């Protein structure tokens, strides 16, 4: 060891270096800030995109990292949205504490449902995640006296942020609020996926039999990440409720679960930034296609998805990786 030049990083260094921030990782934030100044009339759409990025990011933690395939993620989004919404409609108008409550409620639903359903696998698990969404949807529908049922929740009052920044009609405050929350969530998610806990989730995804054989408490780890993911999804739902000041039954539907799955797969699951690429790509495509081709826009979205899952399993980011790899090979 003494003879090797000190500059050469050891394999251990290289393994641990993955955690370090790369310059490219600042790009989403630079773009988000630039959008704020460059497209002041698009901020409501921008806010919705930021919220969907957060929702997709939360899904990536369980799907991309731990390998839990779910069609039930809207359950947590919905619980968060209704929690924030019901609080704001009943006199609790302070937004940050409302958002914390949204995350907590979703987290509780995550722990309880996760504890039960994560003992199953494959199609059974998929169906159980879906069943949770159906049940919560029906509960929200039936509890009309508090949720507004099919008419949606009305009468939300959201106070100025920190008592100082009013939620203005251009959506400036809402945009920056969503951006700040997304940033904090990203910091946490990034820390998590590179931590020993995060790596053990990847181990579970790669080979659960081996994880059992090295003494990993697999079920406990899965429930933990399911709950963490639920908290983040609940915060995303809470953000949507607070920034649009309304909650409709569509927050907790199969369509919303499927939609966020599509966004994540489109961007690339299991790479942390798939959410940052897939959600904007999907939402912008939806926005432009729905305008230019209001009848068939879903067809184009479907075609896009078919191409991605057939030819680009790693999503858009997977394609970028492959292109960079090829470029490097050609240069050599």
């Amino acid at each position, binding site marked *: 060891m003494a003879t090797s030049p000190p500059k050469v990083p050891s394999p*251990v260094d290289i393994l641990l270096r993955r955690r370090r921030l790369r310059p490219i990782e600042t790009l989403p934030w630079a773009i988000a800030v630039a959008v704020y100044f460059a497209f002041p009339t698009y901020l409501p759409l921008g806010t919705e995109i930021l919220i969907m990025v957060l929702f997709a990011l939360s899904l990536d933690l369980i799907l991309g990292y731990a390998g839990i395939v779910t069609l039930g993620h809207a359950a947590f989004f919905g619980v968060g949205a209704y929690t924030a919404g019901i609080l704001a409609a009943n006199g609790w108008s302070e937004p940050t504490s409302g958002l914390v409550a949204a995350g907590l409620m979703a987290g509780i639903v995550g722990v309880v449902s996760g504890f039960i359903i994560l003992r199953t696998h494959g199609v059974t698990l998929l169906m159980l995640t879906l069943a949770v969404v159906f049940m919560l949807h029906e509960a929200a529908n039936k509890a009309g006296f508090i949720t507004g049922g099919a008419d949606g929740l009305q009468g939300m009052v959201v106070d100025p942020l920190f008592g100082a920044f009013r939620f203005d009609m251009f959506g400036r405050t809402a945009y920056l609020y969503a951006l700040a929350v997304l940033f904090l969530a990203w910091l946490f998610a990034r820390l998590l996926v590179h*931590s020993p806990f995060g790596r053990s989730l990847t*181990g579970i995804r*790669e*080979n659960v039999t081996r994880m059992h054989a*090295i003494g990993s408490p*697999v079920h406990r780890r899965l429930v933990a990440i399911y709950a963490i993911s639920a908290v983040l999804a609940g915060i995303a739902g809470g953000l949507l409720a607070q920034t649009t000041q309304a909650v409709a039954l569509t927050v907790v539907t199969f369509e919303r679960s499927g939609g966020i799955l599509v966004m994540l797969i489109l961007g690339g699951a299991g790479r942390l930034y798939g959410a940052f690429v897939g959600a904007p790509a999907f939402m912008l495509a939806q926005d432009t296609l729905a305008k230019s081709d209001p009848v068939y826009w879903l067809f184009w979205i479907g075609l896009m998805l078919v191409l991605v899952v057939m030819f680009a399993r790693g999503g858009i980011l997977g394609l970028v990786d492959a292109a960079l790899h090829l470029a490097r090979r050609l240069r050599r």
Partner: protein
Amino acid sequence: MSRPALETRELNKSFGALAVANNIDFRLEVGARHALIGPNGAGKTTFINLITGRLQPSSGRILLAGEDIAGLSQEARVKRGLGRTFQINTLFRGLSVLENVTLAIAERQGVAGGIFRVAGAYRRVAEEAYALLERLRIAEDALKPVRELPYGRQRLVEIAIALGLKPKVLLLDEPAAGVPTPESAIILDLVERLPAEIAVLIIEHDMDLVFRLAQRITVLVQGGVLVEGTPAEIAADARVREVYLGERRHD
């Protein structure tokens, strides 16, 4: 006799009507080099799966250092010093060799559930993993994804993961199966040089190898122990010869 490292008493397991473990009474002494042999489908792998908790026995007791572990989860058994390798590679194929071993050591050291302030602990884990790879002479592949290694090298990763757990009892399920001869010599050499205090149970088909490694041999046939003894006793046993000669005639 002193307390064995591992013991089973009247261990039974059936898949439907098929009895794959049939009243198995078995003792693995502390520091033993013990081979488990028997024809294909005899139930050797099933026996290991019962010990590790991957399968639940229909009845019977499993004692690790004298304590009944039959009701414990796989995790809890590993924590008590039970390590294994698989007959067919069971690895994190997309992860590097170093990380395969790191995951195991992180679990053993109890840092694998950590999210905050873990950098120092994780470095120590990774360094221990790397030192183990050096010891097994696979350090030059440390950063390669496991799936890119030839099968024989992957077998070494199997063993490295198990050793990373610092087991007191190590169960090796055909560690050299599917490995070309030069590499299988490396694996054997490694098994021979395992720390003396580890009790090793090795399943192996190659008889030369079994006689070279083992101090004791148990012969399993159709889920039951046919005979147990020293290599000399087993070599002289007429029933064993019949099982193996009969077997060879089928091949």
